[in-house]
């Protein structure tokens, strides 16, 4: 008997089923992908001039704070978000004390370069010379933090990291070596001069923003390569089920340490940039709310993928700065920023826990978990 059954006409897959924008992007030839990314990069470099766009320009730029300064703030927040994304999003290790690495990077730089530092008579280096040493110290801190805590379960790890960050802050505040609230002044700026005047001055934050962008692009490439290598796959395995990964031969200890160190390195980068731009650091900057804000940004943007981390990091810096200078009921809207973020976090976790730009894998993970739920 011949088969008379006619296969039903295959429905044309919708745009969303094919993966939406991301799917389309992934299917393009390599040169198209590079062109689009280059376009984004160029646009990012042109952001300091966003105020000149007619009509919408003044709506985008900040009022209460200098726009290039706001852009620089965004750049180091994005850097921190990228770093935290490696720890939380890729490896699945909840780190509540990420500001600690930022602080070590900044303090390392200050200790080696500032005239106020006790080491000044031996060092007194330029910013560029101090940066690698500060970064090495931060990575070391990441290892020191990671090594004893690897055995701990998720939420305990979170609390230990919180404790470490607070200890760092308290030591910075209370000891004379780290000068507490008096802080370190005259931290030198990045080098370079054009036409006799230094590029990295005090009044214009645009060169710092561009430097931040360059660092972000380098970090993106570095992390992307890590993610696609064995390291990234191990992180994925650890995140999904650590015991199963261990059984299957993944050296969880080693790769967890990797995650901490890479995360610490990126956090330290942010700190080094921050110190170089401000020229002055003291202990009041490195508070716990800072860590929580960055975590909120990563989660909001979508943990587990870099685009999400970048968006989240940019938003948590941009929105408060944009609100500065606008009053509602006699209070500057800037004051409401934490309350707003708190509410937004709750809303996102309930409505869209995978974040604004979801990692497809994450979205699938969450859907799978939903099926497992036992009735209440």
């Amino acid at each position: 008997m011949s088969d008379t059954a006619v296969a039903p006409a295959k429905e044309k897959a919708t745009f969303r089923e094919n993966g939406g924008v991301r799917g389309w992007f992934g299917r393009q030839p390599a040169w198209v992908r590079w062109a689009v990314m280059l376009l984004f990069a160029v646009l990012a470099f042109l952001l300091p001039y966003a105020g000149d766009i007619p009509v919408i320009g003044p709506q985008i730029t900040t009022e209460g704070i200098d726009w290039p300064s706001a852009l620089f703030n965004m750049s180091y927040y994005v850097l921190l978000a990228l770093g935290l994304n490696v720890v939380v999003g890729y490896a699945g290790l909840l780190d509540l004390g990420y500001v600690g690495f930022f602080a070590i990077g900044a303090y390392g730089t200050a200790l080696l370069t500032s005239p106020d530092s006790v080491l000044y008579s031996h060092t007194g280096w330029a910013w560029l010379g101090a940066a690698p040493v500060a970064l090495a110290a931060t990575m070391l801190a990441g290892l020191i933090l990671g090594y004893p805590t690897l055995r701990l379960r998720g939420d305990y790890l979170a609390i230990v990291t919180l404790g470490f960050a607070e200890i760092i802050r308290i030591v910075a505040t209370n000891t004379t070596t780290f000068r507490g609230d008096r802080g370190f002044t005259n931290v030198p700026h990045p080098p370079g001069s054009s036409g006799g005047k230094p590029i990295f001055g005090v009044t214009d934050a645009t060169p710092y923003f561009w430097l931040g962008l360059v660092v972000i692009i380098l970090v993106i490439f570095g992390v992307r390569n890590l993610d696609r290598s064995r390291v990234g796959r191990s992180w994925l395995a650890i995140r999904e089920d650590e015991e199963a990964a261990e059984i299957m031969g993944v050296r969880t200890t080693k790769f967890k340490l990797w995650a901490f160190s890479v995360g610490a390195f990126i956090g330290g980068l942010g700190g080094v940039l921050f110190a170089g731009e401000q020229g002055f650091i003291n202990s009041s900057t490195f508070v716990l709310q800072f860590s929580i804000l960055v975590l909120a940004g990563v989660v909001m943007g979508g943990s587990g993928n870099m685009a999400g981390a970048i968006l989240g990091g940019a938003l948590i810096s941009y929105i408060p700065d944009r609100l500065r200078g606008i009053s509602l009921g006699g209070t500057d809207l800037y004051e409401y920023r934490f309350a707003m973020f708190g509410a937004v976090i709750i809303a996102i976790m309930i409505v869209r826990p995978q974040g604004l730009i979801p990692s497809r894998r994450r979205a699938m993970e969450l859907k799978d978990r939903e099926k497992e739920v036992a009735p209440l």
Partner: protein
Amino acid sequence: MNFSGLINEFGPLTVAGLAQGAIIALFALGYTLVYGVLRLINFAHSEVFLVGTYACLIAWGWFGLDQNSAAPDLGAMLGYMALGLVVAIVASGLVALLVELVAYRPLRRRNAPPLAFLITAIGASLAISETVGVLTHRVQRGVPPIIQAKTVITIGNTHITNLQILIVVLALVMMFVLDRFINGSRLGRGIRAVAQSPDSAALMGVNKSRVISLVFLLGGLMAGIAAVMYDLKIGVTKYDAGFLLGIDAFTAAVLGGIGNLRGALVGGLLLGVLQNYAAGLFGSSWLHGAAFVLLVLILMFRPTGLLGESLGRARA
């Protein structure tokens, strides 16, 4: 390091530490209960405490009491105390239930990963404390002198005041009551069952959601009592009062063994005393630093805490 100072002030620091530790212990009960049953660190518990501190101040304000009022006589004092306790307990309990309903229940319905719960908890904590901050313009609010602190016992250079005795006694009594409740009553059995295994308990006929709500409510109750004691002892409250004390309370819970009620008491008292010794040795600015160092050490070397975890494991 001020050794001679520590020895000289050993008595006063111990007494101050016990009083503070009792407040921390009551506060820690909320963390340990919720963690024991749900394996969830309820970051929003600090805001449950915070609301309690403001609620009794507002209630006392209805009667015209503010921080510049004169201390009332014995009868009125007892009345105000009762009023403050009731209002704080109700307010804290309600906020605890509200947080559970709005923030955690939808996530439980979807079997969200533990990370999601933690993050929502942080969000809830931020939202509540910051709203209180904006409403109060981040200015502290003074507490009326309901209890006139009077030195009752003097041993050497140690003065023990009536307020300090009240706080410690109250904490011990509440701990005893709660312990009896958990170990003796039907509802308490339900709590223990859900703590051991939620799904098995559900299969055995325990109403899981009701038990969970009850656990949050109990934690809120204890926090409300701690809130009133805090108000009377410290004399001011501020929008970040919950956050500042919450870390200490969580440390105490972990120190004693999280999930373990008696551990919360032991942990709280011990932490209060050790904090004050550290303050005596290194300076008052190390009060919180001592708590964190202790926390990190405990988690690294004995994560199950002093009295051991009642339920669950600390190491993966």
